[in-house]
């Protein structure tokens, strides 16, 4: 077996990109431990192995990333295909053959899910999120949405609040027009490269895609809700957000969030483990962790049935 000496692992959905004939992409954005590469219809993330996996990531050893980054600029061309990644200006390449693939869709079918227990974890997680000292993006709305506390009015919260309420209601009632309207209001809303509204939608779509059939009180799956969110949001937001939402609608999520969802099968007495998983999820991105967690909690609450 041949193993690329610099690739740690890759996410299963990006395998297709590597199997195609060679295509040109461009470096979209550069962070210290992450590089986003844009292709016409998707994006690839090269991550240091110090970071958790994303649904569109290839992780490289940190020493490789740290040597590569000083030479990169947005707009530089990259060639991917025939199982190979080539960055000619830096004389850098790698191939995936033999590298282990990681599955970003958590295997929820391997566990027994108990609605009551998940509902209890949801409430405790909502309280825990509300207790966090530093709240940015849409996280402050966890209190009015899930803890019956008053809203702190800001231009962002006033725009988002009715749309989030509509999203929850429409998801429960399988009201596709409501989902579309809520998504139109939330997609691309708020600060960040992946705006807060998108992160909430991503968490929401992922839970609906993965768990609606086992957790909804009426036991009816709602996968179409997740795909509507992705379809409506994609043209209204940043390219990176659109790609991540597409993954989320298929239940493909960042590693920390998959781990968090699987802890929800634990008994109520093990909430500490759930909470620790949520804290790890909060470290995702700059503000994306909190917003995605909010989306997850809203979806879990929506599956419990009528709330407003």
């Amino acid at each position, binding site marked *: 077996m041949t193993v690329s000496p610099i690739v740690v692992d890759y996410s299963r959905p990006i395998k297709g990109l590597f199997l195609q004939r060679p295509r040109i992409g461009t470096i*979209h*954005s*550069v*962070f*210290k*431990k*992450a590089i*986003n590469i844009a292709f016409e219809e998707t994006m690839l993330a090269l991550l240091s192995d*110090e*970071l958790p996996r994303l649904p569109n990531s290839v992780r490289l050893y940190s020493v490789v990333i740290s040597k590569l*980054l000083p030479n990169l600029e*947005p707009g530089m061309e990259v060639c991917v295909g025939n199982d190979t990644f080539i960055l000619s200006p830096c004389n850098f390449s790698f191939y995936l053959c033999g590298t282990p693939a990681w599955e970003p869709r958590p295997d929820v079918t391997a566990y027994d899910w108990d609605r009551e227990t998940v509902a209890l974890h949801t409430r*405790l997680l909502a*309280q*825990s999120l*509300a*207790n*966090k*000292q*530093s709240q*940015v*993006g849409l996280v402050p709305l966890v209190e009015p949405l899930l803890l019956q506390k008053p809203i702190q009015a800001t*231009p*962002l919260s*006033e*725009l988002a609040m009715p749309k989030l309420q509509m999203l929850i209601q429409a998801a429960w009632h399988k009201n596709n027009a409501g989902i579309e309207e809520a998504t139109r*209001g*939330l*997609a*691309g*809303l*708020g*600060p*960040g*490269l992946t*705006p*807060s*509204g998108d992160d909430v939608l991503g968490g929401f779509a992922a839970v609906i895609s993965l768990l609606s059939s086992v957790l909804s009180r009426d036991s009816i799956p709602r996968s179409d809700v997740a795909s509507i969110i992705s379809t409506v949001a994609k043209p*209204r*937001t*940043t*390219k*990176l957000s659109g790609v991540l939402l597409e993954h989320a609608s298929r239940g493909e999520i960042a590693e920390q969030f998959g781990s968090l969802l699987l802890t929800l099968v634990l008994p109520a007495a093990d*909430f*500490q483990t759930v*909470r*620790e998983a949520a*804290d*790890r999820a*909060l*470290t*995702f*991105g*700059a*503000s*994306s962790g*909190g917003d995605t967690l909010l989306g997850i909690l809203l979806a879990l609450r929506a599956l419990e049935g009528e709330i407003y």
Partner: protein
Amino acid sequence: MVIRALLKRNTYYDSITLMLVAQAVKDLPGVDDIGALMATEANLELLRNANLTPTTFLDELQTPPVSDDLMIVVRASNDVYAEAALAAAEEKLASRGNRSSTSFSEEMPVRSLEIASKRDEKANLVVISVAGEHAWLEAEQALRYGMHVFLFSDNVPVEQEKRLKNLAVKKGLLLMGPDCGTAIINGIGLGFSNVVPRGSIGIVGASGTGMQQIISLIATAGMGISQAIGTGGRDLSETIGGIMMRHGLELLATDEQTKVIVLVSKPPAESVAREILAAAQITKPVIIVFLGADQKSFASRTGSVHMAKTLTEGAELAVTLAGGDQSRISGKHSLNKYDLSKEQAQLKPSQLYIRAIYSGGTLCDEAMILLSEQIGPIASNIPLQPEWTLAKGETFRGHTALDLGSDEFTRGRPHPMIDPTISLQYLAKAAEDPETAVIMLDIVLGFCAQQNPASVYSPAIIQAKEKAKVAGRTLPIIVSLCGTEGDPQRLSMQRTALEAAGAMVFESNEMAARAAALLVSGTINRA
């Protein structure tokens, strides 16, 4: 107002970077508001709602902005300020650059213990002050990370407290709290604490202001504290069993710097007291202050332990046993500072009662214990006996001592040690009552406490005395002032200002209570 904007095509920064830049620019002169967002449809609507739409700028663009463009919009009082703000934003973005930021996660504010522990791997103590009933979750996580915990939060279920304390002991850690107000660990004050030199006296306490009183008096004698470990007020209950006091005692017993140990608490459950006394039979001198406890009930079990009846006595014993000069503590001799017989002689026949207005629960308890021994029942919201409980709506009844730091007074407002508004209200009420013979107040200095309490109490004291004078009365006001010269408020400055306002100031709460009792008891016995 003018609105100006700049657009950076295909430019990407994370939300924290944009937020920090926006915050910095918003603080510039002339800037009213700023938005720094990806130019999505929803964000353009958000800008509209915030009255930040750069209409002219958008009209002049040949290609409209798209979702992958970064838009920065400034509303400022004039063009000069607006342009300067945009230039500053651009400069700050360039200087921060995503690449120069450390990583996705390292740029973030600390939002969890996990991040905090990674940020500083040497940190080994967590201060927890979160609202609500889930504080124990944070505490458990901290203990599992191997960190000591100072748990300021209250409302932690007692069964969780017991479980957490057992976990802490198992891991050799401290769980100070819940509802722990005071500690000094390795010279660092936590919560409401005073600035004291490091020294050889170690304290474990289940009462915040009780510890502060002892610590402050020890500092007055020029001595210092090795460690002051808070346990939370329920630690010596039957349910908890004094887990943390015994653990703290064990730690101090083996601590090289600690030569003398003081344990302080309100009366413990009898079985717990027995266990504490048994555990305290060690080679180092141990002083126990169980405020209000029947000393006789422990007489057969004290062994080598020194029992002290009051906080001042505990401090005096500690100073002596540590080789210091206890006469430097302003104890009994401080009663001679003021002419109490003259004050008493000026009281009208209607002026019969003490009205004590406290912010420290333990200080209030100690005052009530001492006063009730000399002048009988003391009505209170935290009564020593059930029949002395103030009825609902009753402000004063005969001799009265109020703990304004208790839950019914602090719900939805700051503790009176931080914001003395409620204490001033009760001071005014007491001053208006013709039956009031003397007003007692406690003022606690140190970290977290009001920055300059004399500046708010002195005018109120002057006003209270003047109102009484207009009504044909004199009104003695006694202040129990707890603090040190090193505290941010400076003990001597506070004392001088309060005395200038006409108050009698005692650094020993015991002496403040004794002075008040003497004023109303009819007999002045000079100490």
